[in-house]
């Protein structure tokens, strides 16, 4: 017995020593990772690239207890967030619908849950993320403003482990391990909101109290499933099968029974159901043919769907059994089947060549139906019934090649060309897109870079509002809606004065053509038939500079980002000249700090500031027939009050003897409860002077997340 006890104690001691060793090893790996990433960034010709790994994505403030990829990217320089708390990503003056989101190389059309409150990316399964704002490599195309390339993690080939997290409104489960040790593995991530588990019994209780006369129903749920299966045939020969599905479901209903004076019974009814989501699946094969040549082939399917339906019934009890009813349904989807083949060839020390081709076939569809019935004057029902739908099929093949050429005197140049075709109906567009990047390694700690890229986009988001609504739909370029294009020049200085320090200064100038903006009136959903006519075409430009300074020694991490930028639009049908964009935030500052101040403890904070978003206020008035008529000198002529917010958080981690651990994350969003303006109206004081009245909606939000890792 004593022997067994001693043996156990010795094992425990070894384990704890090993965990200490592992921790030390982890720290040194972290430091190595930081140095490696910096070296890579310094040595590449790439401008405008931010690389975030799983650890960075999971650390920091988790709004509602869920670490969010998009909210992380919103902190970066050159990016405007748009509406607070939403998943807006307006990169270098972009429109928010011009970002290429790739999950394991597969394009995602819908990247948010709950109107943009959360993004679709589950950080539990993400391995790394590359975020390109400029200098796009030739292998990327079909969007104007940015590329967000998210790679999920291969499952552990040796042992099973996972985690379970419970946040303020959702729960997450991640599990990975070998199927055949050393050869095949899986990685599975599940996420689901649990609000409906609380609201369902509450609604049931409320209905029970109300009796039969009034019944209410409703609930919201969202869920994600990520799965990745990896099989290694041999070193350098890997097959991956990836799957993702994410969905949101919102429903609300109210039924009310009423009686008229003669005791006839009737009912009023309201029912709303909204369901939307995405699904992607892919099979990819990576193969290293030789030390100089490797390839990756991917076959994939991606779809984004949305269904909305509502039904209203009003029973008019004063006029007998007459019913007024209204039913409306919207259904939209975009589906894509694609094939990509990417090759990398390193013939010698002076060239690194990448080339490949891709082809996508798209189905775009958006449909709407409407039935309305109301009692006519003669007592008979007058029924209005209508439906409209638009559908397109399109083919988008592209080829590309780029060569990174290492020249003398520490010069490197990357020459690339992407050539894309787009065919929809009888219309064929073609788009040659040159990509050029240039780097001069001035000395070991300083480099200068310059890049030029042309991008084109053949998909347009048909949306009337600045919100991520399920009724929004994607449509392709058509005869009258031309592909959008952008040209961007970016350059900067990249300085690494010390292994812990990094200072980057980048500037960009970007022009955008054939942008579309909704130009209709008073509707949440633009008409589908001839949808192009509800939009007007125009131009955009954006320029500015970004300064990034970071210090990271593995324990203390400090980052400061500053952006000075201008974003302008020119839509002839709206205004005869250039005017500021809604998200033309002149200054943006982000300060991010993280301190691993004690064993198991980590504290972090970030402070965000940017100049206010723009709104359109009248600037003048004239008097017509004794009445004031307000005039607007330009769109978006007024800035909302400046935005600022502090988020703080604390991580605590406890590792148990069995190797399992418990992580507790306490986050406070908007710690000093500063209500930032979301919308504003013009108001008049008693003395006749005017002022703006803005409305802030998002207060302090404390959240706690508990994660158990096993």
């Amino acid at each position, binding site marked *: 017995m004593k022997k067994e006890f001693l043996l156990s104690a010795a094992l425990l001691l070894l384990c704890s020593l090993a965990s200490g060793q592992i921790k030390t090893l982890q720290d040194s790996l972290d430091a190595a990772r930081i140095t490696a990433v910096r070296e890579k960034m310094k040595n590449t010709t790439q401008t405008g690239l931010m690389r975030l790994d799983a650890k960075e994505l999971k650390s920091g403030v988790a709004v509602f207890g869920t670490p969010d990829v998009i909210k992380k990217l919103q902190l970066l320089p050159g990016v405007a967030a748009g509406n607070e708390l939403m998943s807006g990503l307006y990169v270098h003056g972009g429109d928010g619908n011009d970002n290429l989101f790739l999950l394991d190389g597969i394009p995602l059309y819908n990247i948010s849950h709950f109107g943009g409150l959360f993004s679709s990316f589950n950080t539990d399964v993400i391995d790394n993320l590359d975020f390109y704002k400029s200098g796009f490599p030739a292998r990327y195309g079909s969007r104007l403003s940015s590329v967000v390339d998210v790679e999920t993690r291969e499952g552990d080939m040796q042992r099973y482990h996972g985690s379970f997290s419970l946040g303020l409104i959702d729960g997450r489960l991640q599990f990975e391990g070998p199927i055949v040790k050393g050869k095949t593995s899986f990685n599975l991530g599940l996420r689901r909101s649990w609000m409906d588990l609380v609201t369902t019994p509450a609604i049931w209780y409320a209905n029970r109290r109300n009796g039969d006369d009034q019944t209410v129903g409703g609930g919201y749920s969202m869920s994600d499933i990520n799965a990745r299966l990896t099989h290694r045939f041999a070193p350098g020969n890997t097959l991956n099968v990836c799957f993702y599905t994410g969905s949101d479901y919102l429903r609300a209903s109210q039924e009310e029974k009423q009686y008229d004076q003669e005791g006839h019974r009737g009912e009023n009814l309201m029912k709303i159901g909204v369901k939307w989501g995405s699904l992607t699946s892919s099979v990819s094969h990576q193969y290293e043919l030789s030390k100089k040549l490797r390839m990756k082939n991917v076959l994939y399917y991606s779809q984004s769907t949305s269904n909305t339906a509502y039904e209203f019934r009003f029973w008019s009890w004063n006029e007998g059994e007459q019913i007024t009813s209204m039913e409306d349904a919207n259904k939209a989807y975009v589906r894509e089947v694609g094939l990509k083949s990417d090759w990398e060839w390193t013939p010698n020390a002076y060239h690194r060549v990448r080339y490949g081709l891709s082809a996508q076939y798209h189905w775009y569809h958006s449909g709407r139906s409407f039935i309305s019935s109301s009692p006519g004057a003669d007592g008979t029902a007058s029924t209005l019934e209508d439906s409209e739908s638009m559908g397109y099929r399109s083919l988008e093949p592209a080829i590309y090649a780029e060569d990174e050429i290492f020249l003398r005197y520490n010069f490197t140049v990357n020459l690339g060309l992407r050539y894309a075709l787009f065919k929809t109906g009888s219309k064929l567009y073609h788009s040659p897109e040159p990509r050029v990047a240039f780097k001069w390694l001035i000395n070991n700690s300083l480099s200068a870079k310059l890049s030029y890229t042309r991008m084109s986009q053949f998909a347009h988001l048909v949306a009337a509002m600045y919100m991520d609504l399920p009724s929004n739909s994607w449509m392709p370029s058509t005869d009258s809606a031309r592909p959008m294009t952008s040209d961007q020049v970016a350059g900067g200085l990249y300085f690494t004065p010390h292994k812990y320090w990094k200072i980057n200064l980048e500037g960009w100038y970007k022009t955008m053509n054939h942008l579309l903006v909704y130009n209709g*009136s*008073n509707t949440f959903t633009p008409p589908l038939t001839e949808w192009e006519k509800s939009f007007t075409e125009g131009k955009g430009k954006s320029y500015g500079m970004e300064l990034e300074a970071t210090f990271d020694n593995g324990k203390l991490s400090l980052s400061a980002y500053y952006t000075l930028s201008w974003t302008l639009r020119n839509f002839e049908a*709206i205004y005869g*000249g250039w005017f500021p964009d809604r998200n033309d935030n002149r200054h943006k500052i982000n300060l991010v700090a993280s301190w691993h101040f004690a064993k198991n403890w980590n504290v972090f904070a970030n402070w965000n500031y940017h100049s206010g978003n723009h709104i359109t206020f009248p600037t*003048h008035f004239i008097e017509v027939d004794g009445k004031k008529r307000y005039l*607007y000198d330009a769109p*978006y002529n*007024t800035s909302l009050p400046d935005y600022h917010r502090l988020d703080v958080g604390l991580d605590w981690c406890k590792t148990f003897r069995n190797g399992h651990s418990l992580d507790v994350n306490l986050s406070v969003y908007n710690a000093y409860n500063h209500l930032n303006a979301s919308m504003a109206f013009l108001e008049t004081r008693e003395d006749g002077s005017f002022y703006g009245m803005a409305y802030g909606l998002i207060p302090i939000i404390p959240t706690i997340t508990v994660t158990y890792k096993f």
Partner: protein
Amino acid sequence: MKRFLHIISLGCLLAMSACEIPFEIEQEGQPKIYVQAIADQGVGVISIKPRYATPIGQEPLEDVDYEATLEINGENVPLTGGGPNPFLCRHTLSEGDEISVKVWADGLPAAEGRTTMVPTPVITDMTWEEVQADTILATRVHLTLQHAPQEGEHYAIQIMVRTSITYLDGNTVEYLSYTVPGYALTAAESGVLNLEDFLQVNYSHGSSLGGEEYQPLTLLEMKHFKGNEYSFYLNSYDQYLLEALRENMPEEDTGIAGGGIASGNTGGQLPGGGVPIDPSRIPIGMKTTYFFYMYRLSSEFYYYAKALYQSNFDFLSNMGLTPANFTYSNVRGGLGFVGAASCAAPQELVIEEPLIGENAYL
């Protein structure tokens, strides 16, 4: 529990009041010249109406004396009027004429704008028919243009109505009014309501856009035409007028409502033994003349008219929830617009209706 609810309510109230963030508006505060310059080929007039645009937050001033120049194809053209009044120029305009307007006044930045004269549309045919749908009888009118509208071309229609009502005493009263083209006759025909089909602003022929007087100009684009034909209903105005006439009928038992009264002047004594009534209150006939004015508009005119409509009615845009599409101006240094319109020769449609007698409405 009650106390808890009170605390929650108080918290909600505090949160709601804290949502309001008043802020000062940083605006340049510079007064500008607002210009409405309309070149109307049909009337052969170019009118320039400058006004003093007061910055928000300042007291409006008495209008000032303006000066203006007008250039057509680069040549200066004399203007009449001016000072505080509109400037006018009678000039025969042709398609493609380049029109430049410059207005200035002491202490105000000069306002400049330009437009190009649009071609005059030609109506080659007009037909109409009676259409019965459900319980409604309406008139459907078809206007055929010589050339089918193309993408990017802008049109508008204005319908003036002259109504002559003849009373039993032989007197005739005329009313002048405006109506709008009926988009659909029944709910079923209208389909899903598209607000883009109802863009209407008041337009006083060749003079001013966006005034208070009801003279609706309905904006049209290629999508509203079927080839070179534009079709619409005339029903609402008649229905309202007849309803009004019916309400104004004397309450005595005249037998009119029941029909059966012979038409003609009865000298105040109705047959059938009814009590004598005032013949000046009995309408016996109505003649309605519709004048259809089809315009071709320059882009500037169309965009400005659409912006006017949207600034009045697009509450989503005004709340900042959709793009701000109500700010159009092509006047540099000032506000307003310089635009061109050209009107086809008006088409007339006369509809005569007996108000008493068999098959009468009343």
